[in-house]
């Protein structure tokens, strides 16, 4: 078993998501950085859909009551097991009685902690992911807290394994987010769209403090609606990464916690950049670049190939 000494700002259990129930309003609640999530399960030798911890902030600490292989991926951290420094994106062995501490997050926002073994947790609606708003899934439907204990089955020591530096994404701002057109892109004036897509520093957006697992609010030059266009739309299905523009013109990037939205959908973050949304922090600068759909697809195919190289060299 392991015991949570300190959950950092927020530590929750996630997996690759709760899909198939969008028709009754159930959102995916998946790990926000899918590549970091998948790579973590690769490093720990787990199934590709195993639950892991998604953590924000420094201070995270756990105590091991078992010998087990672990790894940390996602945001780069300065972490120690007892007082020995660890490398991110590299698996390591934790021995019974040792303590893992994350002292600092040096790049990015969310990091993922996984173990070579099966955490004893119950699935809710076919997934281990925590739906924080509705308090189901994960660990008793809530964030991990000091004193929580997680038991394991099938505990293993795996050969140590590392992801080559060149495959670890950069998570530093400014973040260039490539996007494709959304259904309501025509609701905005041509000039304000031009501004939205301008890629130079005086016209960037910055991430506000209004940010959680549901969405990220940006601040910058407000988008202007065309005359005679309703500012809200009749609520409709939305996909993860959709950028909505509410009446005040400031973009909200939707993540994995909503299936329906009522604001104009100006764009969708392209698959190649969607994992970066996990690492947007308050004050980070954000730039947008519009892609044609074929371009977005081609880039994604290339990136997938790179992902496979990460695992198989």
């Amino acid at each position: 078993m392991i015991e949570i000494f300190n959950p950092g700002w927020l530590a929750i259990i996630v997996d690759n998501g709760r899909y198939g129930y969008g028709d009754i309003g159930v959102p995916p609640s998946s790990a926000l950085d899918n590549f970091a999530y998948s790579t973590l399960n690769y490093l720990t030798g787990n199934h590709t859909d195993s639950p892991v911890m998604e953590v924000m902030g420094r201070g995270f600490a756990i105590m091991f009551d078992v010998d087990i292989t672990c790894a940390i991926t996602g945001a780069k951290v300065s972490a120690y097991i007892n007082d020995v420094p660890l490398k991110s994106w590299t698996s390591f062995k934790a021995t019974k009685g040792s303590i893992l501490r994350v002292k600092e997050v040096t790049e990015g926002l969310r990091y993922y902690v996984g173990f070579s073994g099966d955490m004893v947790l119950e699935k809710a609606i076919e997934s281990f992911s925590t739906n924080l708003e509705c308090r189901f899934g994960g660990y008793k439907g809530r964030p991990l807290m000091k004193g929580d204990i997680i038991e394991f089955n099938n505990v293993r020591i795996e050969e140590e394994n590392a992801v080559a530096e060149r495959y670890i994404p950069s998570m530093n701002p400014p973040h260039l987010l490539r996007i494709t057109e959304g259904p309501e892109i025509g609701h905005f004036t041509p000039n304000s769209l031009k501004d939205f897509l301008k890629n130079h520093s005086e016209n960037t957006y910055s991430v506000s403090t209004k940010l959680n697992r549901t969405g990220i609010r940006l601040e910058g030059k407000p988008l202007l609606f065309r005359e005679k266009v309703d500012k809200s739309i009749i609520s409709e299905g939305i996909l993860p990464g959709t950028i909505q523009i509410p009446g005040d013109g400031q973009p909200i990037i939707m993540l994995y916690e909503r299936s329906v939205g009522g604001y104009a959908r100006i764009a969708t973050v392209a698959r190649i950049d969607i994992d970066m949304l996990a690492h947007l922090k308050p004050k980070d600068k954000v730039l947008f670049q519009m892609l044609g759909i074929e371009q977005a697809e081609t880039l994604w195919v290339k990136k997938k190939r790179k992902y496979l190289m990460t695992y198989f060299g």
Partner: protein
Amino acid sequence: MNLYRYGESGIRIVFGNSIDLETHEKVRRYYYFLKSLRLKEFIDIIPSFNSCVINFNNNAISFENIVSLITERHGELDAIEIPQPAHHEIPVMYGGECGPDMEFVCEYSGLSDNEVIEIHTSVIYTVFTVGFMPGFPYLGTLDKRLYAPRLETPRLKVPEGSVGLAQLQTGIYPFESPAGWRIIGKTDKKLFDYKKEPYSLLQIGDKVRFIKI
């Protein structure tokens, strides 16, 4: 019906641009049609007031190919079997602590609370869509006399079971949640239970009547 691409992995099938029962019936028929195709490449199907949005696995199939898999079966649309809508009665405690916006709704409509309750309970509502949060039904159509704008600043928290109004819709919050709708009452009926199927009490197309208790 118009079919559009939405991002890399989305398809929108749009049936109109207003909230009405005729559009709703088309959406509902199409939703059951999509389900009947049992395509493993469908990740999620999200029906709403006037469209179905499909999230498909674009790692497994191209947009063009999945669209032709769908459209080549369009001949089956008219014959598709659609379940009879279930009828539900939802008991509601109106006003007072359960309905902090009852006073506002009375003032805005110029009606007494009894009249508001009378009107709210006299309509058999249709579940146009379930969303925003798990099990939350968007119910229509509200009597025009009860039209109320959303709160300008949403409340940070309303309790599970809160019954609200917004424009010409009424709805029920299945979980404690932030809320921008005008809350006029509360029900003890459980709308969503992750522990047993069907997880959501209400499905698209179901009929709902509120009962004053």
